[in-house]
């Protein structure tokens, strides 16, 4: 794979994580358990879609085929999406959304921290900016893990169940393939394997404080980064891409 293609894949991985998670979170719009949370999650979605736009613009530049960011975001098929599986998981109950958000934000903030000093100038400036937003997301989901885990018997049960269900999708965040390795060698991105210890420390501290049990390290689902997705992604895309598929080139 050429250097340029590897960078494009890498940018899509980062951009698709926020595009798909942003799309997922926006499903909460008008359905939040309380007004404040409805607003909070749609604010998260807005941050993610903004970050996705920046990444897709960069992808468009790297790709250099004359496709703009909207074409890249809306006109690819499922195997061409390179997000990790965790972000495409359904929202579930509020505890599931919180668990997914917490485990993802704890990882994503480490990734952005690392990319802040990337040798790729655009990625570095993107990361410095996005990290400010993601720190608020991490604080928000950490607070909710504590509140639900250390709340009533019912909220504790649901929070534990959500952590247990989502945990087997966290392993993919710490995998390295040949593209990740190439980017790491060029000081563009992190060695994902080495982020795991810091991530575990943070996650463990919050789970313990919340009175929750950390699931054991076991087999994990993966494949999203290579375009092998769960059945859920197709449903997200049929929703997200409807307009551009039905009315190609439609503008606001």
């Amino acid at each position: 794979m050429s250097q340029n293609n590897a960078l494009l894949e890498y940018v899509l991985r980062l951009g698709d994580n926020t595009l798909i998670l942003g799309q997922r979170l926006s499903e909460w719009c008008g359905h939040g358990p309380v007004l404040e949370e409805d607003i909070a999650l749609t604010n998260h979605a807005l941050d993610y879609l903004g970050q996705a736009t920046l990444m897709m613009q960069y992808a468009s530049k790297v790709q250099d085929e004359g496709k703009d960011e909207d074409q890249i975001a809306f006109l690819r098929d499922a195997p061409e999406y390179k997000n990790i599986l965790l972000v495409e998981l359904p929202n579930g109950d509020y505890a599931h959304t919180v668990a997914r958000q917490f485990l993802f934000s704890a990882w994503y903030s480490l990734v952005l921290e690392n990319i802040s000093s990337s040798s790729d100038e655009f990625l570095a400036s993107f990361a410095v900016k996005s990290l400010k937003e993601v720190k608020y997301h991490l604080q928000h989901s950490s607070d909710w893990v504590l509140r639900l885990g250390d709340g009533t018997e019912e909220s504790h049960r649901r929070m534990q169940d959500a952590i247990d269900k989502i945990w087997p999708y966290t392993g993919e965040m710490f995998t390295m393939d040949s593209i990740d390795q190439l980017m790491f060698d060029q000081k563009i991105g992190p060695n994902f394997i080495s982020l795991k210890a810091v991530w575990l420390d943070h996650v463990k501290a919050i789970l313990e404080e919340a009175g929750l049990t950390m699931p054991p390290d076991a087999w994990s689902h993966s494949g999203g980064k290579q375009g092998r997705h769960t059945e859920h992604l197709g449903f997200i895309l049929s929703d997200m891409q409807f307009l551009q598929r039905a009315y190609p080139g439609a503008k606001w």
Partner: protein
Amino acid sequence: MNQINVDEIWTALGEIEDPEIPVISIVELGVVRDIQWNNDSLEVTITPTYSGCPALKAMEDDIVEVLNEFGIEKFEIKTTLTPAWTTDWINEDAREKLRIYGIAPPLHSTVDKLSLVGRSRSIACPQCKSTSTSMISQFGSTACKALYKCNDCLEPFDYFKCI
């Protein structure tokens, strides 16, 4: 055509109100980063407050309108991410305008580590000045604000959070 002095353009852009907080200008907010002539073309550099801030497009349109009023035909509006926008750029005058408008201004410089992780010390109520306030949600009516309420006058209010 004679080139219009950039100072004049700065002053004119300084009259453009933030679309969501119409008491401060986009210059006071720190969104306009640079204005310069490149030969016969004017280059205006702006930066987004938040990555997904929907107001940025409206600000761009407003800038174009002002440039058109000046009769400037060749211009480019560039977006930069570096240095990343920070609430530190909002000066004391603008903070006072926010307070009068009913939005508690960002309290600390982002050098304060507490504010970086979203934890802030007591925020004064912009209505009654009481510091007995509590945060309802870190996410408010726009990306840049958190929702607070005053424990004394019981009014809810927006807080411009530090980033």
